């Protein structure tokens, strides 16, 4: 009774994918770019210099590698019995996301604008074409953009870890990469988007990527409910310890590395402030680690490793929007604040809201994403990037207001769609695995294999 639908869905998905490919192929044939004479080399693409190409691609590769970072962090911070499952979710959201963002998402985000809300052309990235001006550069640009889309998508898996059905997660992946992410992306990063026109500034994506991921994480975790055993009968939260801290730490180092593509690469071309951006990024991450460690040390008397690791990510997320507009010293301050914030937020979500977020995605990406977006309006200094001045340097409240407006609009939109999506999934395919499955671990029942075959593992 249960199996057939799965197969049908799969077959349909496959057919749709093939149909899409065919359709696009035909469309491309219909209006083919003048092909170069055989063997003739198309002249240099005016879309970018060699430095632009190399910088953008190397950055894209680094951001791609963040997928490995997320996979390791989320795996390390959850239990051994769900490790295969979380890894598969991380792998598949990028794989599916790549295809969907190619055929659909890109067009919504960067296609020709309609009312500042949505793009409606350039599906399957037809603008990337060796025969078109800037056509070669468009390929590099798409690659850089798809790894950003994938980052937003993968954030959610952590908050929904250890209890979400694999099938439903795959459907979620399609929806975020096709619609949810590209739409807010259009608002902010497409020069014709309505927030872009208001001069809302989110250089590398504290809002576009991280808070979108964070809000979705929130809706997902709320609709799912906490893992069995997370809250005692008295409602007190219990620690469900991650099973592999070395893996989680490796993941954080990989993410830190990847962020050197995420932020400095967001210049989208070579620019001489890339060194500046790399420095603010690094200092904020370092400061986040230090202040998160100190905060949790004071609160719980022990220098908790998981919090220090989250502190790094908090610093990175927070500096993502302001990285190009603030001084290194401000970056240190932003990181220090983010580190404190993430600890307090994790405790608040866990103890007061009683939302079970196994890896802290809501706090790291949502809360610090919001904070970082605001930080642009607070710490920006005019000698950097685009002459913007934040409140603390005498720039007044205007930019801060724009930032707040952008944050709020995105939140409303994403929370709305997120709740709708997860609620529909819950009522149709089902969002959560059965109780026994959850207790036995998702690896055995969902994937038929263990992550650590042969190891004696207690739970």
């Amino acid at each position, binding site marked *: 009774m249960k199996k057939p639908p799965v197969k049908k869905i799969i077959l349909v998905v496959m057919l749709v994918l093939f149909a899409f490919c065919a359709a696009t192929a035909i469309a491309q044939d219909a209006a083919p770019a003048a092909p170069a004479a055989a063997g003739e080399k198309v002249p240099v693409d005016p879309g970018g210099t060699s430095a632009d190409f190399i910088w953008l691609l190397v950055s894209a590769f680094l951001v791609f590698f963040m997928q490995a970072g997320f996979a390791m962090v989320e795996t390390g911070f959850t239990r051994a019995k769900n490790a295969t499952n979380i890894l598969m979710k991380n792998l598949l959201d990028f794989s599916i996301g790549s295809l969907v963002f190619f055929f659909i998402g890109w067009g919504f985000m960067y296609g020709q604008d309609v009312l500042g809300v949505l793009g409606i052309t350039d599906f399957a990235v037809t603008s990337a074409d060796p025969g078109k001006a800037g056509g070669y550069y468009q390929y590099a640009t798409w690659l850089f953009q798809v790894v950003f889309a994938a980052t937003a998508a993968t954030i959610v898996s952590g908050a929904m870890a250890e209890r979400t059905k694999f099938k439903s997660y795959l459907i979620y992946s399609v929806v975020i990469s096709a619609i949810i992410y590209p739409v807010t992306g259009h608002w902010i990063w497409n020069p014709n988007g309505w927030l872009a026109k208001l001069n809302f500034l989110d250089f590398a994506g504290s809002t576009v990527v991280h808070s979108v991921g964070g809000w979705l994480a929130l809706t997902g975790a709320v609709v799912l409910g906490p893992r069995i*055993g997370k809250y005692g009968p008295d409602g007190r939260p219990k620690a469900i310890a991650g099973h592999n801290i070395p893996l989680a730490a490796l993941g954080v180092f990989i993410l830190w590395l990847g962020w050197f593509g995420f932020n400095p690469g967001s210049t989208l071309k070579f620019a001489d402030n890339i060194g500046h951006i790399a420095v603010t990024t690094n200092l904020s991450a370092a400061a986040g680690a230090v202040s998160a460690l100190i905060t949790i040390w004071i609160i719980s008397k022990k220098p908790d490793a998981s919090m220090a690791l989250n502190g790094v990510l908090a610093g990175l997320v927070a500096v993502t929007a302001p990285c190009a507009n603030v001084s290194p010293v401000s970056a240190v301050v932003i990181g220090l604040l983010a580190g404190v914030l993430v600890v307090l937020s994790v405790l608040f979500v866990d103890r007061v809201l009683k939302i079970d977020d196994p890896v802290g995605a809501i706090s790291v990406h949502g809360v610090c994403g919001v904070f970082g977006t605001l930080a642009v309006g607070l710490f920006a200094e005019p000698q950097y990037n685009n002459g913007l001045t934040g409140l603390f340097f005498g720039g007044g409240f205007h930019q801060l207001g724009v930032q707040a407006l952008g944050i709020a609009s995105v939140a409303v939109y994403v929370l709305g769609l997120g709740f709708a999506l997860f609620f529909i999934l819950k009522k149709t395919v089902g969002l959560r695995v059965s109780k*026994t499955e959850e*207790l*036995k671990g998702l690896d*055995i*029942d969902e994937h*038929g*294999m263990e992550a650590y075959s042969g190891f*004696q*593992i*207690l*739970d």
Partner: protein
Amino acid sequence: MKLIIAMIQPHKIEDVKKKLYEAEVFKMTVSTATGCGQQKGYSETYRGVITEVNLLKKTRLEIAVNDNFVKPTVDAIVAGAKTGSIGDGKIFVLPLEQCIRIRTGETGGEAIG
């Protein structure tokens, strides 16, 4: 004195512990094992090869008790671990001749609790 050894489903350990606490059994030793019995295992499909895995993960409890505690302990384990489906596990009761508390050197019934 008896030594009670029980093999239970790993995911029932919390329930069993709760029942044992209710029966005022607070001391125990827990370890993991794999077992095969009536439960036929699940079919694992590693790399497309479907294999019956018949050694399944079990949790192993060891509880040393005085004779009057045997029944409450066994009952508590059953109450916590029983689901009614194959694989619920077994309880074994062994005679225990002596028990020594290392810290104090106490022996016998006193040492056990």
